[in-house]
């Protein structure tokens, strides 16, 4: 009922959710129930690849929320993704226990290798899953809060904001490269064995992670859609289109930007946390500024300011990337660049703009009013 009222106007979103539901049923079946000899069998490799795409889609969704709707072009969103990934990686590291190469009961291999005697303080607690999950949310959220508080309060906007977000992720990359930081330096965290007691090599675990990614993406989509369709969402678009006007209407623009930014960073962190157990490694290159820029390209290609467009863009571009990097690895970056240029020139509203035709993006019909409009007295409103 609530779902229906909220989302009836959102065809693209409904298609996305339906596709996710279908994938969540078909993919596990084809992998687990269909014998390997059958041509319909889906390899575990493919399942993991699909799961990875879903994590990227979640990340793209997070970016679209702030870029498409609030005009904050973050070129450092990869940093929040990577931090979430590291938090999960630390948990997975601690799960290895004595099974490491050096067989130390507590210390991860790289610490033994560095001759460290005890666990640094910030590694404590990561042997517990709930704690790691808490950190997945808290660390990116807190960083986004501090960063956003400083940046938005001093009214840094536009290109300047983009540049400092880029600097942020670059600085974090340099920091995480250092061995003394205690995050495995260059090599990052890897050689994971199991998660919550399930072996990461097992097909069942891989399918489980895929399902978790699909569910998380669906939930995040619904949450974002709820935000965007609320009055808060309209304030945010107002900030994007006329920031001063919004301020003089009486909204504390900085707070709106800040909370949206924090929420987006948390989503990015969750995406990273789901990504790491599937790919089996997290290293500082995830902080690379280039990653964050690629992310922006996914969203632009899919169509910003629509939410589902961002998810679609992430999945399509990464599918193309998988294909290209296998077939013509040296051409990938050129292809991506060309695609980006073509899309910005010919499809300013991205691929979904192509399908949507003339309908305006991000313009749900006014929710607070009956379309006929002239009879305000009849609206008892189910939520009222």
């Amino acid at each position, binding site marked *: 009922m609530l779902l229906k009222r909220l989302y009836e106007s959102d065809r693209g979103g409904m298609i996305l959710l339906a596709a996710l539901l279908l994938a969540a049923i078909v993919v596990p079946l084809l992998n687990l129930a269909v014998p390997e000899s059958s041509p319909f069998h889906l390899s575990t490799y493919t399942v993991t690849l699909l799961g990875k795409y879903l994590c990227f889609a979640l990340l793209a969704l997070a970016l679209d929320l702030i870029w498409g709707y609030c005009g904050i072009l973050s070129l450092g969103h990869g940093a929040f993704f990577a931090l979430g990934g590291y938090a999960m990686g630390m948990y997975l590291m601690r799960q290895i226990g004595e099974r490491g190469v050096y067989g130390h009961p507590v210390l991860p291999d790289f610490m033994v290798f560095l001759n460290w005697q005890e666990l640094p303080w910030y590694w404590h607690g990561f042997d517990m899953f709930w704690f790691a999950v808490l950190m997945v949310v808290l660390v990116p959220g807190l960083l986004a809060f501090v960063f956003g508080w400083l940046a938005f309060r001093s009214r840094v906007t536009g290109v300047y904001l983009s540049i400092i977000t880029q600097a942020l992720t670059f600085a974090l990359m340099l920091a995480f490269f250092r061995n003394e930081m205690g995050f495995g330096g260059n090599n990052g965290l890897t050689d994971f064995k199991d998660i919550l007691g399930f072996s990461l090599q097992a097909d069942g675990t891989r399918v489980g992670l895929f399902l978790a990614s699909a569910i998380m993406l669906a939930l995040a989509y619904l949450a974002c859609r709820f*935000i965007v369709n*609320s*009055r*808060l969402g*309209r*304030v945010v*678009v*107002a900030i994007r*289109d*006329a920031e*001063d*006007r*919004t*301020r*003089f*209407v*009486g*909204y*504390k*623009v900085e*707070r*709106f930007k800040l*909370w949206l930014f924090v929420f987006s960073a948390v989503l990015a962190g969750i995406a990273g946390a789901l990504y790491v157990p599937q790919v089996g490694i997290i290293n500082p290159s995830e902080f690379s500024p280039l990653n964050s820029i690629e992310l922006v390209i996914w969203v632009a290609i899919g169509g910003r300011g629509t939410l589902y467009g961002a998810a679609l863009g992430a999945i399509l571009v990464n599918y193309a990337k998988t294909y290209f990097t296998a077939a013509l690895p040296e051409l990938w970056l050129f292809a991506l660049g060309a695609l980006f240029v073509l899309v910005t020139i010919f499809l300013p509203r991205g691929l979904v703009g192509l399908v949507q035709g003339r309908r*305006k993006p*991000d*313009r749900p019909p*006014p929710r*607070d*009013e009956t*379309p006929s*409009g002239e009879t*305000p*007295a009849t*609206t008892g*409103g189910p*939520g*009222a």
Partner: protein
Amino acid sequence: MKTLDRLREHLRRDRVFDFMLPKVVFSPALDTRHGPILYLEGVTVSFDGFKALNELTLYIDDGELRCIIGPNGAGKTTMMDVITGKTRPDSGSVYFGQRIDLLRLSETEIAQGGIGRKFQKPTVFEQHTVFENLELSLAGPKGVWHTLFARLTPAQRERIDEVLEIIGLTAQRHRPAGVLSHGQKQWLEIGMLLMQSPRLLLVDEPVAGMTAQETERTAELLTSLAGRHSVVVVEHDMEFVRTIARKVTVLHEGRVLAEGSMDEVQNDPRVIEVYLGE
């Protein structure tokens, strides 16, 4: 130098530190017992040495409709910036009613406290419908959490309909504000001010670029607002000013050159000189 001054300010023994003063709260019972709702006294604003406002002193009465005219660059927009907290003056004081010191408040606090402002260039939320523009401008709580779950009450809906009627955009309520004509955007912006139920409206060049008919309608609209609200209109168009103004203030080089009825002002030799010299 500024730091030193600030330090001295802190060492003064005849007053408490700023942060210890009770936080100013706007109340509906704005104190206008002495007549004026707005006090500007000795306000100076300089941009790189150039004084856009020069010791400007001006009082606006409660419920008054005041027109402010003056050649380009006289400082009219800068004055509005000062009142609404966008620009901080180098010196002078600005009070809303007897007690509320506007120089201590942020733009948002001033807006929420009852001063609405229309920009010189019409600014509405182009992607939103006319209705949504008014909805966003509703008076009331405007926190992040509140807006996430906010729904319109029947009373608020009625208020929006009422304002739509006042600004003559009832038929356009579902159209995106971006497709409105220039004049309609100006009205919508005035409507957005009305939604905030302000005590004081600052309207910067409302009829710039309007047709004669639109100008006439705007004049009616503004005069109908006076009384319940205090309205300050900045305008170039003399014809327009003559139709609405009871009292006119002429601004020149950042200070008041003349004040009085339109006839008095027009026959003032200093005003004639400024306008002919332009």
